[in-house]
């Protein structure tokens, strides 16, 4: 087991290395010159070349990457070209918000999604089931911006129950998390429904019912754990989605997450920030997936880690 963990951690490091090479290469190939972004529109050619030399962007790719890697190994993510501050500092400032939103968003998705999925599976084939199906598709097909703004309008402006935007208190978290939850719940609902339908007709469910267990116990204790495995995998995926940014929701609710930072950096080829955000989110994704794999045997004891 410890060996497995060790192996996976080594693999994780390799994956991060791979991500860094590819990203760096893509940014290198990108037909947009970060130096010109730094130098601004009034810069002379000489200024541009000066800056290029200072940043080492005139060096061949391997030299540039090698230097980046060397710094990275020392924990240095470099300085942003345009913000002129430590990338690590910028990311650390926004990481708590992102993690918080991620946790709350995933929680919302899970609660809404699993509830919908269970309900639909139990009421399979009835109008309830169909209504739930339509709602999950509405959630998935709806543009984030519109949903976010609608919620904000209703609960923030009209009813005034919740703050319109910002970050800080639990009340601020509700709307953005709910928006993400409503949008993502469709996936969970459909997945839960489909695995639950498979599980509900297994013999052991019959056993559980024969024991006279309550419907909810049968559902939550016996059926759900058997159906939840793909859901765990989906949480791993969601971590990726949240980390690489839920830009739209973040900006609607003024949420100081990593998504906005990344989006602005991408628009303006701020390579150190792009690299930093990519690596941090890659780390989260790799760890998230590792966690999902580690949890799997707990959920289904027949699965062995290999």
């Amino acid at each position, binding site marked *: *087991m*410890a060996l497995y*963990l060790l192996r996976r951690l080594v693999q994780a490091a390799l994956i991060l290395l791979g991500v860094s090479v590819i990203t760096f290469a893509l940014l290198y190939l990108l037909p947009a010159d970060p130096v010109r972004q730094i130098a601004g529109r009034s810069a002379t050619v000489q200024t541009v070349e000066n800056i290029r030399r200072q940043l080492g962007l005139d060096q061949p790719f391997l030299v540039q990457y090698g230097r980046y890697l060397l710094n990275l190994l020392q924990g240095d993510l470099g300085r942003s070209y345009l913000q002129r501050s430590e990338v690590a500092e910028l990311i650390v400032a926004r990481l708590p918000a992102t993690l918080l939103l991620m946790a709350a968003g995933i929680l919302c998705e899970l609660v809404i999604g699993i509830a919908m999925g269970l309900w639909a599976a139990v009421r399979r084939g009835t109008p309830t089931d169909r209504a739930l199906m339509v709602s999950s598709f509405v959630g998935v097909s709806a543009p984030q911006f519109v949903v976010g703004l609608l919620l904000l309008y209703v609960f923030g402006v009209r009813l005034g129950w919740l703050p319109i935007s910002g970050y800080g208190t639990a009340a601020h978290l509700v709307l953005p998390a709910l928006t993400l939850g409503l949008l993502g719940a469709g996936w969970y609902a459909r997945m839960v429904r489909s695995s639950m339908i498979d599980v509900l*007709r*297994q*013999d*052991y469910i*019959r*056993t*559980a*019912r*024969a*024991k*006279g*267990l*309550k*419907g909810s*116990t049968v559902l939550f*204790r*016996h059926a759900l*754990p*058997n159906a939840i495995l793909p859901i765990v995998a989906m949480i791993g995926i969601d971590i990726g989605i949240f980390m690489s940014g839920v830009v739209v929701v973040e900006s609607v609710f003024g949420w100081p997450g990593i998504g906005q930072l990344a989006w602005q950096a991408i628009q303006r080829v701020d390579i150190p920030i792009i690299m930093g955000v990519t690596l941090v989110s890659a780390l989260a994704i790799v760890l998230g997936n590792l966690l999902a794999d*580690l949890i799997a*045997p*707990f*959920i*289904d*004891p*027949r699965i*062995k*880690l290999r």
Partner: protein
Amino acid sequence: MPGPDGAGTAPVLSVSNLTVTVGGTAHPRAVVSGLSFDLRRGETLCLAGESGSGKSITSLAIMGLLPKPATRLASGTIRLGDTELTALPERALRKIRGDRIAMIFQEPMTSLNPVLSVGRQLTETILNHRDVSAREAERMAVEALDAVRIPRAGERMKSFPHEMSGGQRQRVMIAMALALRPDVLIADEPTTALDVTVQAQVLDLLRDLQKDFGTAVLLITHDMGVVAEMGNRVVVMRHGRKVEEGETKAFFQAQQTPYAHELLAAVPRIGSGPGRQAVRAFEKPLALEVNGLEVRYPGKGGVLWGKGMPVHAVKGVSFNIASGETLSLVGESGCGKSTTARALVGLAPYSGDVVLGGRNLGGRDAAGTKQAKRDLAMVFQDPYASLDPRMTAGDLVREPLDIHGIGTKSERRERVVELFERVGLSPDAPGRYPHEFSGGQRQRLAIARALALRPKVIVADESVSALDVSVQARVLDLLRTLQSEFGIAYLFISHDMAVVENISDRVAVMFDGRILETASRDQLFSNPRHPYTQRLIEAVPVPDPTRQRERRTLVPVLAAQGAAPLVEVEPGHWVATVH
């Protein structure tokens, strides 16, 4: 013989005119029709009858757990005391289930929740119906496990179903049903997967329960020995109808219908099997040679850190089988029989040598693998779990032929039809899916599958235990015929000593991962040397209610034995030295 305590009193459970159909409303087909019977307090009613006759469906109907949407209760009433169950809302039914009526299901593997520990599944029932603390529930659960003779019950609470042997799972099911001392216990083939020693204990337990609490038992079994031993009354079913009903004693003395007569006649009895000459290993080429086989299951521990003690399930087993020979492996539940079988077919990593037709399977190359699989087939202990639920029976049986590219399409189809016929499955069976069969029918499906390739060796794990005697007889016949036709060697794993006596050339007795005694069938049955073997043979229930009740010696658990070497006490008869 002790009469039922409450004989003559009003029935606790009364089924009348029960009809269950399958196939939806468009094309209904009755699988139980017009069935009526009463079950009184403290009484044991045995429901006997051939495989597929509707026994399990009847019991499910009583529980209100008929599989939807395939089956439907078309008509009839089921009364528990004064309560009409068919009309009861789910809520009220729930209160009754598990508490007043408990059920032991036929297939133990699929009937236990794979992701919950055994302990949790047990305590939950208790907590659900009794107002006790979690600790108390746990204590009761361990007690129940002890009662069904699960060794080290306290530790076993943490096990998951897949970590237990077939018999152990079955005992967990029984423990679950018995834990709350229900009024009515429906037991669907409760002891089929159990070796005779444990079977005897479980039956005793049922009897005690009946004595102490007046529990009424509806016992579904095809084992006439069990019927004779346990039943107060017998109901014989066929094709979904009741063909005969009567007091057990009277039933065994004289049957009213020819069908019942045939049924009893077909029961294999120890000492009545056809005389078979043991095939000596040197006379025919060896089909399978096993040397020093050991299997360990990785132990449980924290998922992240440390390892638990590995389970040493098979501790150095050696035997060989000549082609055309049948070697039976007997032994109590959990002694490692299935594990040995799984190791042979490559499903459990092992150490030691397995030599099939001169080739050591331990180091098989890719080309050898496929041939080896063709030559060595396995029939799994739990047929339902081993059949792909999304394939039709026909496809399942044809599949081995497809895999190995045997014959043309039409030849394959013919072979499949033939196989179905030979294992006694109806012509419509190929189009049906596994869940649409009865337990016994599934087992036949699994046998047909193994036979499809005409392998050199077949490992049959409790392959006839779920079959009613008539089908059992037929299948055993089939196995024998094929053996003489193609020289197939069988490794026959069973706990049913009568069947073993019937089919084997030689017998190996296994205990706690080791072989204690091997001998030819005649030697073993006439002259068992090891005390364990002796008790095993003694414990076999006999289909004669008059003879049964006297012979009641419990088999004590043997103290764990060291690796005692086998000694040849007479030619071909080896016994572990007893300390």
